[in-house]
């Protein structure tokens, strides 16, 4: 068993309006740091799991992302296992 790091990005589905992203975009407009077309905010999780292989780690992390870290009504997620 080794410790394996994984990153999970959880984002709102594209059809879902994102009040936080929208507010940030609006704020950026005022600041004139550059022309920003859109901002979408999501969540990022860095997990360290114990597993015997990258494959096993990915399986565990996917399950966690699906059941706990994201809400399927609103969100989609991506998993990346660090090498």
């Amino acid at each position, binding site marked *: 068993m080794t410790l394996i790091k994984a990153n999970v990005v959880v984002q709102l589905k594209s*059809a*879902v*309006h*994102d*009040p*936080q992203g929208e*507010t940030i975009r609006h704020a950026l407009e005022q600041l004139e740091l550059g022309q920003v077309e859109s901002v979408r905010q999501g969540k990022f999780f860095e997990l360290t799991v114990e597993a015997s292989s990258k494959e096993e780690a990915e399986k565990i992390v996917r399950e966690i992302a699906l059941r*706990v*870290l994201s*809400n399927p*009504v*609103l969100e989609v997620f991506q998993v990346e296992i660090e090498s």
Partner: protein
Amino acid sequence: MPRFAVCVFPGSNCEEDVQYALQNVLGEPTDLVWHKDTSLEGYDAAILPGGFAHGDYLRPGAVARFSPIMTAIQKMADEGKPVIGICNGFQMLQEAGLLPGAMLRNQTLTYICRYLHLRPEQLDSPLTSGLSEGELLRIPIGHADGNFYADDETLETLERNDRVVFRYVNAQGAREDTANPNGAANAIAGVRNERGNVLGLMPHPDRCYQEELGTADGRKLFESLIAWTKERT
């Protein structure tokens, strides 16, 4: 005599307000039940109260839905007994899949604690059976994530099947953007399940059950719940 259960999760903070309204003000036996308990045997209705279960970390209600008590809640729902989620309790019922939709951050991105106007859309629900046609409620909200979201199809089903129970409206009882505090889709403040016994709402009847607290409109909702439960036990 019916018995009411108010489920307490770590981080809940409105359980005593609900208990006080039901028991001290309205005289109905009401117990606080710890989230690690596995049974709600002997209870005729359950309320999931407001607060910040597990700090609302991750998402409101996301961790609470895994608590052992939620299995018992599911069972009560299946048996057709009233299960009411107030605020954080509503969010838990959504996370658990017992009620549709999910909550986004309020449009303002801030927590909002304020009295507003609420229009009951259905008078045959556990919380509204005692209200009269056309009655508006003055009731407070207190939440940061009450911006109801569901996809278009779900929204349509909810509307078509009379499952929207409460809506945010203005003082005249009309829908208006400025009367919708959090940006909720279709100004939805409360919905029920298909069977009608599971109901969630963001506003807090447990904060306005006596005139001195602002209004006593919340008391009407609890009285409805009591009558509804008595009729069915």
